[in-house]
Structure formats: structure tokens, C-alpha cells
């Protein structure tokens, strides 16, 4: 079970300062909660690039391929024969390829978002406070029991409004 220390901050610079100190001391795994995306946290945490783009690319390519395939297969299997005209023709079928590229690409993007954000989530798990969707920032440090005190000290020194241990 996750065990750690949660700091609740009202000021963004205090929260960033605590993150920098926690990272320097390598206290544990840090999770930041913020009511809105802030580039300050990106600078403080330096997270890797989101892999959602891979889902988008794979979904879009699959959708475009399926769009061409379904229209060509449908036309060949149920041919509407008009003299002088090809049964399958790629120009109008690009419309199906495009629409399905957008549809499947868009839905895959959402799937990527959900998978990597771990939503839907049935429980809020430890380390969350309802104030984090309001006007407070949260820094949750998941760490070993022997380092909890150190985490608490860092969070308090940075100016946390409230610090509490959770598990």
C-alpha cells in the first residue's frame, strides 16, 4: 500500500520549491496536483513526453486504411456496374479514409489519455484532497516510512499550508 506525505500549498512558487528540494534529496515518487495545467510544474518535474501521440498515429493510420478497405471491398462485393466507370475508385473513397482516420484517430487519442492517466478510476486513492480542484496545489511524496519525516520537513520549509501523512 502507498505510504507518503501530502503537502497542500496555496502558492505555486512554494509548491515548485518543495518539488525541487524533494527531487534533490530523492525522497520518493512525487505526484503534483494542480487545478489547472501550469508550465511551472513542467519545469520543476521535467516529465517525459506524453505517449498519447503514438495512439493518435496508430489510430489514424488504421482508420484511414480501414476507410479505403471498407469502401473498396464493399464496391467489389456488391458492384454497381455503370458503363465506362470503374467499380472501385480511390478519389471518392478518400472521403471515407479521411473520416475514419479522424474518427478512429480521435477515439484512440482518448483511449491513450485514459490508459496513461489511469482513468476511469473507481477510488480517489491516497494523496488527494478536494481542494486540488479549487485553488490549492498538492505535492504528494510516496516514500519509505523512514523518510517520511524528511519529506514532512521539506514540505513545511517550502511553505505548505498543511502537511499530513497518508497511507
Amino acid at each position, binding site marked *: 500500500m502507498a505510504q507518503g506525505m501530502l503537502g497542500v500549498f496555496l502558492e505555486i512558487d512554494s509548491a515548485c520549491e518543495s518539488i525541487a528540494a524533494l527531487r534533490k534529496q530523492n525522497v520518493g515518487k512525487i505526484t503534483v496536483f494542480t487545478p489547472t495545467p501550469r508550465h511551472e510544474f513542467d519545469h520543476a518535474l521535467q516529465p517525459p513526453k506524453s505517449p498519447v501521440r503514438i495512439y493518435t498515429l496508430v489510430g489514424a493510420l488504421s482508420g484511414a486504411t480501414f476507410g479505403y478497405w471498407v469502401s473498396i471491398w464493399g464496391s467489389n462485393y456488391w458492384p454497381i456496374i455503370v458503363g465506362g466507370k470503374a467499380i472501385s475508385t480511390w478519389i471518392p473513397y478518400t472521403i471515407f479514409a479521411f473520416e475514419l482516420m479522424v474518427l478512429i484517430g480521435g477515439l484512440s487519442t482518448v483511449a491513450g489519455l485514459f490508459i496513461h*492517466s489511469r482513468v476511469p478510476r473507481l477510488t480517489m486513492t491516497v494523496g488527494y484532497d478536494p481542494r486540488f480542484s479549487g485553488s490549492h496545489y498538492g505535492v504528494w511524496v510516496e516514500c519509505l516510512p523512514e523518510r517520511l519525516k524528511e519529506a514532512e520537513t521539506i514540505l513545511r520549509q517550502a511553505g505548505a499550508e498543511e502537511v499530513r501523512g497518508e497511507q
Partner: protein
Amino acid sequence: MATLAEPGLDHNDGPKRPNIARAGLQLPAVKDYAQVDREIIATLRPTKAWFTLLMASITCLGIGAASWIYQIYSGLGVAGYSPPVMWGVYIITFVFWIGIGHAGTLISAILYLFRAGFRTTIYRCAEAMTVFAVMTAGLFPIIHIGRPWKFFWLIPYPNWRLLWPNFKSPLVWDVFAISTYLTISVTFLFIGLLPDIATLRDAEKNPIKKQMLSLLSFGWRNSENEWRHFARAYLFLAAFSTPLVLSVHSVVSFDFSMALVPGWHTTIFAPYFVAGAIFSGMGMVYTIIIPIRKFFKLEHYVTLNVMDAGAKLTLFTSMVVGCAYIVEFFIAWYGGVKVEQEYFYNRVFGQWWYAAWIMLTCNMILPLSLFSQKLRRNPTWLFILSLFINIGMWFERFVIIVPGLSHEFEPWQWSGYRPTWVDFGILLGSFGWFFMWFLLFIKQLPVIAIAEVKEIVPPRTRKSAAHVHAGGH
């Protein structure tokens, strides 16, 4: 996401030259996150005015439903169709509502990619409008077919009914385009709503409502990890929606331009329809947002700078549409095709003169008033103008569809068209249906995106907190 705050600027809401709504100038009266939560969540409380409007919408919907039931009972003949004009009010209204939907995606996706700061406080409203407008539009092919229980015949899947899917038909393209558009618009709206639903969940005191909001928020926690993936997903959805919005109305225009009907068979239709759709959508955005801004006391969110920037977009699209009207006449003259020339003469000076002049006045002439900065910043005028735009754009679709069918190549094909009370009842019902959903939406979910507004509000820092404690502003 869209913009970054510029703390320390001298904010005010006066006219700017050049008059571009920049992030730092957007919300001078919004000071902190708590204010955003408090004021936007306050809009969710039902009021008498809201209830009255909802009842009015449901009454209109009832009239529409009664008219439709009468039509189903009596047959499609009561709808005013007479050969060769077999596309009338229902197809006009279908194209009208599809067009309305376009401004939502324009504001939420295209302006997001262009980092246009003024979209922040109006995009949620426009996105919801898109979803409900496309839902409304989707009813019309079903109403138009006369036997709605056979609506599944519209779906192009292989079957044993001797109806083979024709993948070269624009009507089949339309099914794919509009289904995709509805799905992506709903997805885009819902993804944008997730953080705001989480905010409502955390602020909710009623345990049953809290439980429902918890389910609807999917357990969103506002973690940095979630935001990182959210920002990327939102960007890609916007990138997909941008060409999608252009494709959907292009495909709708192909329903006409692929046909050998005078006035329809023209290559200008795709850009002409797209520009018209965005223009009509902007009209409906103003029709909706101006009363919301006033009755919910959100003038400091939907500021005059926001109205001004949107009005410029409306003016621009009006001029594109106006240009398309002129080009149509030019090509009819320059092309030298007699049937085309007679069709356009008949449109403006013949039997459809009233519709054409309503269209030209509402869509080309009245919007020119927006060259005046004073009028661009006048919500009353913008609201009145938006009503004219809605009327003008409905008549634009009338002018495209009916005169073409009523004045084809041979004189024996020339005819008239007179909509009946059933047509108008269903048209009224469509407005009732649209506004009913919209009114229900605005009392259940935030009409302004809380998380995105917070993004442009300067965050609290130790320095700013010390300044406030010292008595600063």
C-alpha cells in the same frame, strides 16, 4: 493550454488598438481561482427565468412533435412538397443546423490551434451548441424520409433488402461525415468537461449528486500526470477537428454540387458552404452567449474584447460569404450558360426575390455594420444582428435548395413551393429541441470552462500574496 497569463499588466476592458484580445487583457476583473469557482458554479443554480425558457422550449418541441405525428399519420404530402421540389424545409433546416454546429468546432479547435485567447470563455458554450445542433440536424433526414421507422435504411451497410451501399454517393459520404462529426464533437466536449466535472464533484455537498459527479468525472484528480496527457490529447483532438470541420460542410455541399441542377453544380460550393456555416454558427453563438452573459452576470468573463474579437470573425466570414454570392452571379454571366443565367435572374428578380433579398440583406449588408468598433462592442446590436444572421442563413439554404429544384432545364419542370404549417411546426420544434438540451446543459455543467479560465488567471505566488496582505490590489 490555450494561453499563458501575463501577470503584472495594467488590465482594463477599454477599446484596444490594434483591437486584439490578448491573454493579459482578457479578464481584468477576475482575481483568483476561488472567484472563478464561486462565480461559475453559481450559474448552475436554477432560476425562474431559466425555468420559463425551458418550458417555452418544451412547448415549441411539443408543437414540433405534434406536427410530426400528424405528418406520419397523414403522409408526407402534408409537408408542402410538390414535384419537382421534393427537398424543402426539412433539408433546408438540416443544412441550417449542421452549419450552426460549425462555429463550435471553429472556436474550440481552430482558434485553440491559433492560440486565440478570446475563445477561452466562450468555447464551452459553442461546443455544447455544436453537439446539440448536430443532434437537431440528425433528426431531419429521418423526418424527411416520411417513414421514420425505416431510418436504418439510411445507414450504408450491406443488407438483404436489395439496397446495395453506393460508396460513390454523396449521401453515403454525408452519413460518414456527420456521424464522425457528432462523435468527435461529443468526445471533445466531454474531454474538456472532465476537469470541470471534478471541480463540481469536489465542491458538491449533496451526497447523491456527489456520487453522480464522481462517476461522471471518471475519478479525475487533477494530477500533473493527468494534465500532461490531457494537454496532448486535447491538442490532437483539436488538430483532428480542424480539418473535420472543413470536411463536413464540404461533404454536405457535395449533396448539391454533385447533382446536375442549375445553381447547384458548381465547384465553389465547398468553401462557400464552410464559410457560411462558420458565419451562421457565429450568429448562433451570439444569440446564446449574449443573454447568458447578461443573466448569469458574466460580463467580466465574456468581456467586450471577447465580443469584439468574435465580431471581427463574423464580419470576415460575412465578407467571404458575400464574395461567394457575387462570384456565383459572375460565373453565371461569364459562363454563358443560359439555364444558369435564368436561374440566377429568377432567384433575385423572379419568383424567389423575397428569399434572395432577405439573404443578401441579413448576410451581406447588415454585418457590414461591424466595421464600426462601437457596434462591435455593443452587445444589444450584436444580439439583434445575430438574429438577422440566423434568419439570413436559413434563407440562404432556402435560396440554394428551392429555386434550383423549381427552375430546372425544361419549362415543364418549372414549379413553385409553398411550405405548410406542418413544415413550420417542425421547424419550430427543432428550435425547441435544441434550446431544451442547451438549457438543461447550462444548469447541469459549467457553461464556461473553469480549468481553462484558471489558466489565464495569474496564479497566487508568495510575492503576490505578500502584496495582497500589504493592502495592494
